[in-house]
């Protein structure tokens, strides 16, 4: 009961950012995808002439959904940073941690409520819009060749990277070290993981690096949050 109340409180605080991310992604992603559907007939074709060598450039294609990719990626990272700052950094500046921590719930419950709220925020703000855009792009009357499952998974990887950015921000906010020493290491690790993920080509490698980084960040967040003085 206490947990659900805390969860609702956290969700209430996340709500404006969730809505903003969902609306921006739906509006811009949808607009560019619709525009791409309009020009679909120009997509492949007839750049190849008889009796000539074919530059492989003409045979490699992005998914039609690539117009939505940067929106999803940057919105997800942005949402992660904003929620991390909102939940862990702002209470430092406004000195409101004691008001939250003095409640008759354990610190573990408070932290779990924050993390759960963030995960829900990511899934219900960007997730349904992404599923909707993928479904739209996969309809044969819109694009003849169906979208690959890999592109769908990559969309969810972007959403997970937002979560990595959130955890990195949270760890940096919770750290009591000076900003010029190890305080920013949480954010740096998140950056390294995001760059590493974007440099891999196997889904197994990507999921492994995300899982390892999430585990590293989560363990430290719990440890710091349960131990530190506020």
């Amino acid at each position, binding site marked *: 009961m206490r947990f659900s109340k805390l969860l609702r409180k956290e969700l209430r605080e996340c709500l404006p950012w969730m809505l903003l991310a969902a609306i921006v992604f739906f509006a811009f992603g949808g607009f560019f995808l619709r525009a791409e559907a309009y020009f679909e007939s120009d997509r492949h074709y007839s750049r*190849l002439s008889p009796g000539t060598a074919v530059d492989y450039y003409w*045979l490699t294609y*992005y998914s039609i959904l690539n117009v939505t990719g940067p929106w999803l990626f940057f919105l997800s990272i942005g949402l992660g940073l904003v929620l991390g700052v909102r939940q862990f950094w702002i209470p430092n500046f406004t000195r409101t941690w004691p008001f939250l921590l003095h409640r008759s719930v354990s610190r573990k419950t408070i932290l779990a409520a924050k993390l759960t709220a963030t995960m829900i925020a990511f899934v219900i703000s960007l997730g349904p819009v992404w599923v909707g855009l993928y479904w739209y792009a996969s309809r044969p009357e819109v694009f003849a060749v169906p979208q690959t499952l890999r592109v769908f998974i990559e969309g969810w990887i972007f959403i997970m990277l937002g979560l990595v950015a959130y955890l990195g921000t949270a760890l940096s906010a919770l750290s009591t070290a000076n900003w010029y020493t190890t305080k920013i290491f949480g954010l740096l690790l998140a950056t390294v993981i995001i760059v590493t993920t974007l440099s891999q080509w196997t889904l197994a490698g990507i999921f492994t690096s995300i899982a390892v980084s999430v585990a590293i960040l989560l363990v430290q967040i719990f440890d710091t949050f349960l131990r530190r003085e506020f």
Partner: protein
Amino acid sequence: MKLKISLKHIATPTKIFMTVLIVLLAVLMLQGIIIQTERMFSRTKQFSAPAKDKEELTEEEKRIDRIRSSSKEFLPDGTIHLVHKPRRTPGRMDEPEIEQIYDANDNLLWKGTSDKRPYEYLSWANQLRRYGFTREQMKQMQMITPGFSRFIEIPIGSDDKTVQIWRYHPGAQYFKGYDINGEKIGYIGSTGFTNSKSKAKPFGKFRFFTAWCPQNSSNPILLWQTQRRIYQINFERQNVEMIFESTDSDIEIEKTSLHAWRDLKPGAEGSSDSKKYRPLLLCVTEDGKHHLILREPERQFSLAVPRSSATATKQGIFVHCSGSDALPPKGIANSRELYDKWLQERWGKPRNFWVELYKVDNQGGLELLNRYDWTLPPQSESVVRARDLRLAVQRYVSQFSPPLYDLIFHLLGVRFWSSAYYYQHRGDFFLDLIRTILDFRPYGGVINRVLSALMMGFAFLHGWPRRTSWAGFVFWLVFVGMFNLAGLLTYLALNNTAVIRCPACGKPRGLARVDCVRCRAELPAPERGKLDLIFST
């Protein structure tokens, strides 16, 4: 409380891992910046080193320079000619490109514009890599950029409209086809076309492909190279032909080359005279064998000639090889020490080069038709000095790298590292990173070991009054020793607690422990003040 305690046991190692990872990357970046800055300056020096003008060269030097820059061409009867193209006057692009043709005895045979050349030389198979799509590019294509990964799609058209699209699935290693209404057509795999997924057989591990449109169609044909096979795929006819299979060893990606194989229109880039030449494919397997696959009629040979190219006219099959004692021996790139030693031995010595032309008989035997040798003087001193400085800076900068890199290098083995070297600069993030680490490994240097020992000494002095357990203290000393500068910075980042003078023994002691590490005296209780009245009630 239990969670707190168990978390501490996991959180501490993860914190160390995270910190050392970031510090290692920071040190690596710093080393890279130093090396690149130095290279920038040494390159400027190298280029600004005084070089002789053409006018200052002696007649003999001019002759050697001409031989060096001439292309060595063969006539079908084996005669060799040296084709030299003098540089145009700077800024005079309107000048026609003149070429001079010399024979092997350095007699000028002809001079004029290349389109009026009176000789028709043999043209040779070109490496596919120049105009193909490689395994590394396939990996790059699958990387998830913010615009998602890409894929290979082969459009098949009819009457200027695309009617089919064949998409390659890297996981399943076959193509899947769709018509323009989004309906599935079928699959193309190693056994050809099938409309059932269960019957589609994978091509095998992708290595390379090149594509062209034949003269009678605008639909591409693919030459598809896997680990041990080469296929030709015609999507329009839904036909797959296996051109070559190696049963014993893998096919080298770099060395597959083609001549007159693709049905290109005359004058198109890469085209050959189909009336004069037979279609030829040359591939090299990792066991060093060169395989010649010919058409019209179909023939296949295996040859053992290093650094070669081939061509097949209607009259005969020719193999062309080149060599030099100025090139490092095979396998030497795996060892920097051996390479440096070889380089030192080579400096100051003249460099010998040669080209050879062989004719291949019907049994695949080779008959030497002609050979041409030439010698170049040693490389200039200015280049030697610039390179030495670069190596010296790299050597000193590498001394701050963890000795652990050397251990990892030896554990992973030569084969792994040579592969990392081989694929350098091809966009493979991890191999590039590994190669960079390889560049910065300390090579067991004495300075590196001394620096590690000094840093361990510093960590000892710093950690002695602050130690809370012997195990932790020893761990950090070993850690600093293994990671050098990165280890010391990590140690300081995670262990730098405040120190006070012990009131009992007067020596420094950390505040992370309640008793003094030397005299075992506990921390003094704070003096009673006015506020204590409140707390005592």
